[in-house]
């Protein structure tokens, strides 16, 4: 019971963070499925969503700020695709990836300029930021909501992909880009829709994520972005359920490692702390390398064959 009390807070925040990573990871995995592009700028879109919320909430009530923030983030995602990726559609994949890195650099520098590099306090959203107690461990309500909201959004998304026209078009494009084009699918529209959905989920994710953290800085997007990408690879890139499962696994593992010193001491394995929390970020990437080496297509990934 004592052990349970030690582990529970870490497990709870792990599930919560996992859900937030999942929302970002879907953006990565959908874009990769269609364009075969690691959208390095996605993590920064997530950060910009946080900043937009900070600035909007200062000048208008929350019930206006939240929808407007989501709309602006979606617009940003759409514009990035049109401006930075669309002109390179026939270029080698490496050029597009470099362009994505360039966009990420630009967004970070822009955020640095606008905020002056200062930590911007994220607004407190009533109800979801309220403190609650779960099995005796204090937390915020957002921790509990995140996994449910994530799963609900994913179910809607999967339904959208399997049962609507645009979903069918997306599946066709991700299967074979050129053939889909020949069948009269408007590739550019499908790609835009993908970016819109990805940015929408990133905006929702940022709201949940930053509610748990003190504030937003220009580099806030980097780490969550990379981890969400790892989650997408871990689950098998291109697969939405895979990304979600991967994100939850990574979120939970990462938070357990943050508390591993304390947990191991509670169990009695360790006498003194080993400072293992340093490795909570590194663990994600070690996991990535291991997964890539043993199962490069991830947990639920499709098999690809190379054509000469």
């Amino acid at each position, binding site marked *: 019971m004592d052990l349970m009390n030690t582990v529970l807070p870490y497990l709870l925040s792990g599930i919560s963070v996992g859900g937030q990573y999942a929302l970002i990871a879907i953006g990565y995995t959908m874009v990769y499925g269609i364009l075969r592009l690691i959208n390095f700028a996605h993590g920064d879109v997530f950060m910009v969503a946080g900043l937009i919320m900070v600035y909007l909430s200062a000048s208008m009530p929350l019930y206006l700020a939240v929808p407007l923030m989501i709309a602006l983030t979606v617009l940003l995602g759409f514009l990035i695709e049109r401006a930075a990726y669309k002109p390179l559609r026939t270029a080698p994949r490496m050029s597009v990836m470099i*362009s994505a890195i360039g966009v990420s*650099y*630009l967004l970070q520098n822009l955020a640095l300029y606008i905020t002056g590099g200062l930590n911007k306090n994220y607004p407190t959203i009533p109800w979801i930021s309220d403190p609650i107690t779960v099995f005796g461990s204090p937390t915020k309500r957002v921790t509990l909501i995140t996994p449910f909201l994530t799963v609900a959004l994913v179910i809607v998304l999967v339904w959208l992909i399997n049962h609507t026209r645009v979903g069918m078009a997306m599946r066709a494009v991700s299967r074979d880009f050129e053939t889909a084009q020949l069948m009269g699918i408007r590739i550019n529209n499908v790609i835009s829709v993908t970016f819109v959905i990805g940015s929408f989920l990133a905006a929702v994710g940022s709201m949940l994520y930053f509610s748990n953290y003190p504030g937003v800085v220009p*580099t806030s997007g980097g780490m969550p972005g*990379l981890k969400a990408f790892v989650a997408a690879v871990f689950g098998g890139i291109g697969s939405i359920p895979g990304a979600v499962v991967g994100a939850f696994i990574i979120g939970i593992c990462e938070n357990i490692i943050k508390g591993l010193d304390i947990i191991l001491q509670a169990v009695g394995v360790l006498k003194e702390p080993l400072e293992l929390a340093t490795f909570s970020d590194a663990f994600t990437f070690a996991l990535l390398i291991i997964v890539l*080496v043993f199962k*490069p297509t991830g947990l639920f990934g499709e098999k690809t064959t190379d054509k000469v």
Partner: protein
Amino acid sequence: MITTRKKTNLISLLLVAAMLALVIVLDQVIQPTDSMSMLLKVLQKGSIYALAAVSMNLLNGFTGLFSLGHAGFMLIGAYTYAILTIPSEVRDVVYQYYDAAIRLSFPETLGNAMGPVGTLLGVVLAIVAAGLAATLVAWLIGLPVLRLKSDYLAIATLGFAEVVRAVFQWGKLGPVTNGSNPLKSFVRINSFQLKLGGTTISLTTFVPVLLATVCIALIVLLVNSTYGRSFKAIRDDEVAAEAMGINLARHKIMSFCISSFFAGVSGAGMAMVLGIAQASNFKSAMTYEILLMVVLGGIGSISGSCIGAMLFIAASEWWLRGLDSGNFLGINAPGIFRNGFRLVVFSVIIMIVVLFFRKGIMGDRELPDLFKKRARKEAAGK
């Protein structure tokens, strides 16, 4: 044909020697208080970044392995160099919270035995050790990781760099790496001076430029060798290269290790220039910056990478400074030109290059190619 090539080689050699001589002269002429002293700073930092960019180009541009682990290898190099050159009298001050485990300083030990030559030899040895440490790690990580294809390789190496950073910051390794505290007080570039009779010649800028020049020259020799041609063959078509009898796995790991060696050396150079080695400086943003330098100069061009790195450093540290301090090109607008605006303008320029001038400044040509073309045109004109 052979004679023209020899001629080109001779000319390039003379030009490089002239450049090095010019750097020494500049070092003496320009005072630290001078407005032109930024030029020296740019040369110091730019030459190290040029080496880093060229070593990344060797891997990304010449072998076609898109790796983003450069910051990790540079970190290993910087730390190895720093640890091996901290003099014993200041070691306990640097490692204030830990009991230093490695109590060896190459320049000091050799300097005591052989005088100034020994000190210099010690520094060179420490730099080589920095490269070798990075190579060893690259070899270990390369065995599994190099089986991955393009973007998977990129993300795995990016992840590797993050793991390295975490390991170096781990408190339990404090006796070796000083935990998350910086390493300092080791041999820096401004420690180098030449005493000739009564006059002292400062070598502050010459040392990093020389280091970069020697290493880049070695990379040029490698690229022009049969190995270099094999690398290019792998880049252009793996399957065809294998069919022609090139051992893919061996050449890939060789390219990865050599690139990491020079990344390690550039890390050591970075530590020498900055006078500080701290793991938190070697973030993935650094890898991205080096990648952008390579792109700016042209992927697959060594002289392009050098030009790209110099322009990148000069623009971000010197020419665009005014954008941050309120006054640029005579326009005075403190409201817009405030802190950080420089980087915004700069990243917009880079995006324009990436989108509209995809080949960068040089494409895949080298500097001598430009003159050759002109000479041929002139000959045709006659």
